[in-house]
């Protein structure tokens, strides 16, 4: 099976049409990388379960029709709805265009545009290169003190007709000793085809404490790829939770780099997938020194014809003694057409380490279903209660208080839809 290639010539023309600014050199360097390596295919080990064909097809159609950026004014209402549901100080990237009009200048937070300061570091990873090559502008945020409201980031896109592509790139630096709350909300609307690609870098300073929530609520059918790269400072702490509720083809890469001792990282992920969805979560934790701990728990509820992937990699490098790395992935399959590829990968090159991993794939517990039905609940009500219970642990651990209600209602609504899709 040969994957369609990205139209690199048309891509080059699109890159050259972008304004000449602080990002120009980076765009060219990224384009050269991309030209040399191309995008990953299912022959690459990290991509064997996820075919980027749809993303490439949308990109090529978008490039062929002039690679224009849609007007963002019609997104106003969707943005307002998100802002009304979570009380945060919002940075917005709409159709790839940075919008700071909803952000309130706050002591302790500095925001700069890449175009007015310095370009981001080129990651030399194909999708990050695509991101850097086509980037209009990005944001660099320094959090120097705790703030009353969480920092919010809305990445939202609209594809009304045809095909559209957008890039978002954000760097967040949390200063040493600082507490920070961050909410990332990815969403999209419109009947057209859309491909969104984001790169977020988070630097957690020494003894800093970061609580981070990610919500992906894109229109069913839209495509998202995204990389979150985290570096953990000495004695720092990160609590993170991600929720994948929408989208068509979704691929999230989370990389956590532990290069200094003493940090504690916990991250959860919940993915709810129904007909036609493909949600792939790839995580990688590099323990380069010890002691440090990382704990991840991903859970999925799948119904209809869908496929999900969880690939959790933890690498304990030579000398990273005192590492404690834990991975868990649990899946509930409500349909015989739902498919999960669950793959824990532990590579351990140090002696004094504690590592654990566990994956489960199961159906609803018949005994519990029967019990609930003998109490008068019908099959659908009972199913809904049990799936809800399966998700409840993670929903109960959302580390940013301002986002809890919204996440609860999003999860409830999505589960109700999923169960409507009649388990078969």
């Amino acid at each position, binding site marked *: 099976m040969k994957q369609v290639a990205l139209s690199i010539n048309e891509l080059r023309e699109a890159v050259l049409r972008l304004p000449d600014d602080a990002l120009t050199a980076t765009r060219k360097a990224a384009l050269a990388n991309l030209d040399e390596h191309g995008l990953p295919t299912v022959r690459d080990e990290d991509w064997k379960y996820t075919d980027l064909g749809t993303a490439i097809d949308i990109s090529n159609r978008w490039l062929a029709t002039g690679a224009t950026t849609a007007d963002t004014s019609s997104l106003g209402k969707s943005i307002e709805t998100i802002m009304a549901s979570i009380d945060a100080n919002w940075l917005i990237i709409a159709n790839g265009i940075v919008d700071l009009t909803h952000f309130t200048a706050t002591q302790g937070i500095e925001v700069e545009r890449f175009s007015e300061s310095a370009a981001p570091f080129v990651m030399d990873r194909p999708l990050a290169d695509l991101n850097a090559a086509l980037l209009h502008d990005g944001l660099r945020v320094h959090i120097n003190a705790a703030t009353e409201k969480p920092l919010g980031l809305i990445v939202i896109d609209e594809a009304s007709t045809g095909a559209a592509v957008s890039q978002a790139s954000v760097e967040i630096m949390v200063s040493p000793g600082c507490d920070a709350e961050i909410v990332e909300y990815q969403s999209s609307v419109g009947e057209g085809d859309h491909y969104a690609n984001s790169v977020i870098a988070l630097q957690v300073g020494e003894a800093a404490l970061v609580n981070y929530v990610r919500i992906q609520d894109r229109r069913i059918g839209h495509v998202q790829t995204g990389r979150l790269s985290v570096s953990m400072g000495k004695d720092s702490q990160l609590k993170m939770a991600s929720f994948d509720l929408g989208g068509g083809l979704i691929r999230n890469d989370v990389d956590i780099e532990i290069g200094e001792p003493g940090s504690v990282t916990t991250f959860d992920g919940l993915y709810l997938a129904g007909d036609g969805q493909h949600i792939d979560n790839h995580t990688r934790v590099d323990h380069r020194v010890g002691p440090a701990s990382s704990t991840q728990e991903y859970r999925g509820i799948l119904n209809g014809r869908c496929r999900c992937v969880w690939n959790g990699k933890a690498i304990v490098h030579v000398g990273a003694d005192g590492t404690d790395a834990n991975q868990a992935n649990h899946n509930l399959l409500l349909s015989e057409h739902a498919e999960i590829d669950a793959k824990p990968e532990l590579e351990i090159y140090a002696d004094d380490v504690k590592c654990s991993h566990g994956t489960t794939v199961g159906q609803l517990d018949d005994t519990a279903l*029967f019990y609930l039905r003998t109490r*008068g609940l019908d*099959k659908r*009500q009972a199913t809904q*209660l049990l799936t809800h*219970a399966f998700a409840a642990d993670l929903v109960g651990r959302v580390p940013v208080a301002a986002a809890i209600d919204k996440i609860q209602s999003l999860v409830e609504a999505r589960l109700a839809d999923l169960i409507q899709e009649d388990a078969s």
Partner: protein
Amino acid sequence: MLEINNLKSRIGDTEILRGLSLSVNAGEVHAIMGPNGSGKSTLALVIAGHEDYVVTDGEVLYNGKNLLDLEPEERAREGVFLGFQYPVEIPGVNNAYLLKAAVNAKRKHKGLGEVDAFEFLKLAREKMASLGMDPKFLNRGVNEGFSGGEKKRNEILQMAMLEPSLAILDETDSGLDIDALKAVAQGVNSLRGPDRAIVLITHYQRLLDYIEPDFVHVLSEGRIVRSGDKTLALELEEKGYDWVREAASA
């Protein structure tokens, strides 16, 4: 109220009930006793509608209706309650939420509106107090981390809130200490009434010291082999189940 005629049921290839007949009228308390494996729990699960138990012959009439035609939830809404021998732990499902959903499912079936949240909580707390249950159990996951005795009290709490017409309590006494046993018995006794029938399934006579049955039946190898009044339970306790088996096969 409940009329069981020549009921035969199997699970997989194993026939468990082999022509069981039983008649229970409103206002009566029946005790069904029998050795392990005699079919006591199977009878309870067949009446509640567990789909693993296939009924091969006979009928179960409830207020003249064929109970076997109804889904488990329909039986519940019609007023049939099964207190489980092993109540299921359902982490993540809030106990109060389930209680309320159950009460509302029944109310909806009767054409009534949803229960008032305040009244519901007040009533639940009252019932819990009389069962010696800590109100904090309302906000725990259903039976999650409950001890054996707490689980059984929780079953009785559900029964008290649902006010069934026909309650079948499967080994409700097993795993209870004497205080819990008394509390559970009190809960059951307070539900006794002219419109209600209670079927106690038990291995031991002990429970019947606290809940006095009108009738005692002995189940053996899937059939009721002997029926009598409460003195039968005492006789059984004294002579053991072998006595019944011998009597049945003689």
